[in-house]
């Protein structure tokens, strides 16, 4: 009844609003050298030692310098540290610093400043970087451009940590006051203002060592959570680029000549975490019999999931390490769906039908994904009850062991350790499955102490072979980062870490 009636009212409305438009028709003036980036969420605290969100890292990449960076192939490249050496059988990591660098407030960025930052990250009460730097025993500064990290034990994951927030540098002068509301870094752009849930504005720092490659006067991060609205803002010219275009919008964005779409497989994974041993909720065939889990995995067609739910834009996978990582095992591949074999495995385990509950975050896409999984698994004899929960509550239930399975994933780290160790080792901080296996523990601990990539890879391969059999976490796919840009934006390079590196980018 409402639909036919709303039609005439619509034209009535158009008439009513037409008059005031005439007054405000004047075109909006565009600041030529502003880059306006649409973010999906509001970043949390703008203090790299306390921050924890993905979007926050995008802002930090413009605002702050870090010791080292990674390139699109996940190789380490110089930033503030121009070179680095591992010595003392892997127990010393020494950095040579770029000379003559200053923070936005004019304080020199020298070895003392780096030391002050690392120590703040390691000891401050509210620091979230402690576990990332826990192998560091002491920071020494033999001269103004040399920083030496003395390690408690060999740690091949440390350089990767220093390529992210743990290696970001704040002016030590800013430590006395709360950093978040007014961060003082040394990056290519300095902080101007923040309106929570609306925008973060940075302006060009003329004194930056890479200023010649920075082509914007201001960077304006605009927070627009709704994907449709974010794209509409790009189309109407209120944004120059946006991060995380919805896969469902890719087709229409590609069809628009004024836009371009760039994507790359990210560092993370999405999968199903299964409760093996965390409280009594783990009882039952799914948690207690690996054959049941293998059957579930075999019942899923990962490629079809990707095509149906994500327009084929993600990368189906059964491993935690993304395609860009040197630790990704090319030979493993993605096994084809095999319902007959899945049924046989269930039968061998003594079950005709297995019922379990799967927690799912309460977004539309998550629920679509869960329903596809549910339908596929049903053909092999699984009865999955989908329980949609708000994300924070879902994680809490999972930590507390009050779940059987969760459809959840991980945003991913540059270093392979970050994608696997804490999830499956005995006593790992986020081992919510409470999986425990001495061989896996040994291999993953050993991998932390090996600097040679080929040798390290062998340790991960050995652990993954066991994990693919036990399946505490069933990997499904690696999500892709998808950006949409105005065709006026030049020089953007997609990187698997999902960051936006502004160096060399410009507006035509």
């Amino acid at each position, binding site marked *: 009844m*409402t639909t036919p*009636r*709303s039609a*005439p*009212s619509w034209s*009535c*409305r158009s008439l*009513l*609003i037409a008059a*005031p*438009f005439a*007054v*405000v*028709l004047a075109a*909006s003036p565009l600041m030529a050298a502003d880059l306006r980036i649409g973010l999906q969420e*509001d*970043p*949390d*605290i*703008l*203090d790299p030692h*306390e921050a*924890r969100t993905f979007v926050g890292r995008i802002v930090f990449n413009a605002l702050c310098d870090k010791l080292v960076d990674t390139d699109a192939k996940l190789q380490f490249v110089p930033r503030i540290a121009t070179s680095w050496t591992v010595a003392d059988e892997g127990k010393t990591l020494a950095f040579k610093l770029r000379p003559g660098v200053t923070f936005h407030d004019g304080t020199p960025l020298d070895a003392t400043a780096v030391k002050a930052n690392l120590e703040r990250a390691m000891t401050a*009460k*509210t620091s*979230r970087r*402690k*576990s990332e730097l826990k192998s560091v025993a002491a920071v020494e500064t033999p001269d103004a451009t040399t920083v030496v990290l003395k390690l408690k034990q060999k740690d091949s994951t440390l350089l990767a940590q220093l390529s992210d927030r743990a290696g970001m540098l704040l002016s030590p002068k800013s430590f006395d006051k*709360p*950093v*978040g*509301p007014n961060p003082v870094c040394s990056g290519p752009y300095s902080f101007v203002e*923040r*309106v*929570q*849930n*609306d*925008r973060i504005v940075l302006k060009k720092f003329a004194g930056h060592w890479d200023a010649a490659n920075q082509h914007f006067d201001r960077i304006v991060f*605009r*927070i*627009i*959570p*709704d994907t*449709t*609205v974010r794209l*509409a*803002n790009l189309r*109407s*010219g*209120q944004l120059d680029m946006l991060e995380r275009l919805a896969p469902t919008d890719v087709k229409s964005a590609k069809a628009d000549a004024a836009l371009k779409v760039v994507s790359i497989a990210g560092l993370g994974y999405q999968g199903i975490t299964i409760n093996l041993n965390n409280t009594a909720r783990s009882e039952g065939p799914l948690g207690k019999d690996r054959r049941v889990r293998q059957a579930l995995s075999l019942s899923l067609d990962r490629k079809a999931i990707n095509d149906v739910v994500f327009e084929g834009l993600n990368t189906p996978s059964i491993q935690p390490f993304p395609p860009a990582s040197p630790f990704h095992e090319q030979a493993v591949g993605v096994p084809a769906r095999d319902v007959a074999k899945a049924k046989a495995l269930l039968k061998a385990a003594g079950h005709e039908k297995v019922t379990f509950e799967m927690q799912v975050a309460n977004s539309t896409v998550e629920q679509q994904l869960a329903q596809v999984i549910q339908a596929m698994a049903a053909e092999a004899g699984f009865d999955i009850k989908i329980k949609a929960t*708000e994300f*924070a*509550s879902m994680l*809490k239930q999972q*930590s507390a062991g009050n779940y059987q399975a969760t459809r959840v994933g*991980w*945003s991913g780290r540059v270093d392979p350790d970050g994608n696997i160790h*804490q999830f499956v080792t005995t006593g790992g*901080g*986020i081992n919510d499955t409470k999986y425990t296996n001495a061989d896996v523990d040994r291999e993953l601990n050993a991998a932390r102490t090996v600097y040679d990539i080929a040798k390290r890879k062998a340790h991960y391969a050995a652990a993954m072979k066991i994990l693919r059999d036990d399946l505490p976490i069933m990997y499904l796919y690696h999500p892709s980062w998808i950006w949409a840009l105005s065709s006026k934006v030049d020089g953007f390079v997609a990187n698997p870490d999902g960051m936006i590196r502004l160096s060399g980018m410009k507006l035509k």
Partner: protein
Amino acid sequence: MWKLILNRLVVAIPTLFLVTVLVFALQRVMPGDPLLVMAGEERDPAVLEELRHHYGFDQPLPIQFLAWLREVLTGNFGASLRTGEPVLKLVGQTLPVTIQLAVASLLIAAAIGIPMGILAAVRKGTWVDAVANVVSLSGLSIPNFWLGIILILVVAVQLRWLPASGFVSVLDDPAGALRTTLMPAFVLGSGLAATLMRHTRSAMLEVLRLDYVRTARAKGLMPRAVILKHAFRNALAPIVTLSTLLFGQLLAGAVLTEQVFTIPGFGKLIVDAVFNRDYGVVQGVVLCTAVAFIVMNLVADVLYILINPRLRT
């Protein structure tokens, strides 16, 4: 009148206290843990414990409440757990935004709803009344977010007449403010216009039946004067009450519209705070909203007195 205002303010104190207790309790009953949100993806148990202690979440609830209340009474509303921004700064940033939007919406609602209501009442039973009813029914039944997205797609993306999002304060740049506020205010106002129209219509019908209106007509006054000067003036009281209540509603209830037009308003602040379990912000914002409602009610009472001389004694 001053006595009335003073009375209301005294009664407001227990109300505000009750509101804060309720909000505090409700938040703690809600599932989810702010520290799990804060500890990041790694959720390192050692970090969790340290944070729990740092923010006092390891204290018994009544102690936590008293600690918060003590700070509030000394003017310290605390800082956001999520961003470290002071709560008062957040309120100060978002409240003017929402007030501007609410005033604009109410103006649009009044400009559409009241004349339509009067017209519908005066021409009761004719095609004018029918059209007004249809328009108001559609105004009520079209969801805000849908109308918002359609307007963005048509007006901002296709026609490029107005920006799709953003906010400019009327104090900084009146023209820019008009450009950014017009669409969201229209979306909010069109829904409210329907409510206002229906109330105006019934209030007018009520009054038009009365003897003094017939007398006014009988003594040969222009119909226009009868309707606007005699009838409408007396029908105004319920409309004013409704408007002030609607205004209060707009302060906290414009979330969807704020979301669609990405306006950094009060409603969005509180919804995001709830999702992030940002306790301090939720408490601070709800306290401010409660104050706003109490003030709006008071404003309604004062306006009554100004409109209706009989209450002035």
